[in-house]
């Protein structure tokens, strides 16, 4: 991917940063002149990925979450990564309604929403290896 513009942020895995993360990515996205719907789609996907890092990756302990964005022509690539506990079975984790935390009212729709609102989603993870979610979306 030839990158025309890139940005990177790193922040604490505190729930108050969920809004900060999605708004920051949305602000970076504005250079592609997205529609309101496209902005909402990206914000939802980023919110899901960051929430996963906080709840599942770090299990509410405070560590760092990294977001890397790259824009190439009309496409944005967003990488959300943590150094947390990782996912044992990525395929299972991505099944709609599957959640390891039903007691906390997690809906199991996080990855399903990322896949619904982005063009492509790739998840790389393993136990103790952290999790890296890469998402692509073409604007317009």
């Amino acid at each position, binding site marked *: 991917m030839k990158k025309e513009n890139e940005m990177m942020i790193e922040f604490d895995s505190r*729930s*108050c940063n969920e809004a900060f993360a999605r708004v920051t990515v949305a602000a970076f996205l504005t250079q592609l002149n997205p529609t309101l719907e496209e902005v909402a789609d990206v*914000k*939802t996907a980023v*919110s*899901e990925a960051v929430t996963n890092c906080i709840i599942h990756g770090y299990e509410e302990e405070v560590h760092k979450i990294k977001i890397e964005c790259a824009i190439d022509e009309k496409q944005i690539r967003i990488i959300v990564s943590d150094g947390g506990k990782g996912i044992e079975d990525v395929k299972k984790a991505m099944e709609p309604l599957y959640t390891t935390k039903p007691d906390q*009212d*997690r809906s199991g729709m996080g990855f*399903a*929403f990322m896949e619904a609102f982005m063009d492509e989603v790739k998840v790389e993870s393993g136990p103790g290896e952290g999790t890296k979610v890469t998402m692509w979306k073409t604007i317009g």
Partner: protein
Amino acid sequence: MYEQNQQGLTVYLPKEVDHHTVDKIRMEIDRQIIENGVSAIIFNFKDTTFMDSSGIGLLMGRYKLVNYIGGQVCAVRVNEKLKKLLILANVHKYVNIE
């Protein structure tokens, strides 16, 4: 933010419904269910412009709780964008959406 009358408990949701904002709301609703025997919950979305799957968990979790005692949950003043999200997660099969 909360209003209780004969129809049940109305919950006025915040502008942004995410993991950060739902935690407190969930605790307050569950307290009202347990202490006041609330069985009908009306989620009012008039101020809400953003929601992620944490909102789905909030609605479905409350549905499961009150359904157990014969109650119900509905969502009112939901904008088209959020309606799409609720339908995608199949919430409309359990919760009446207006």
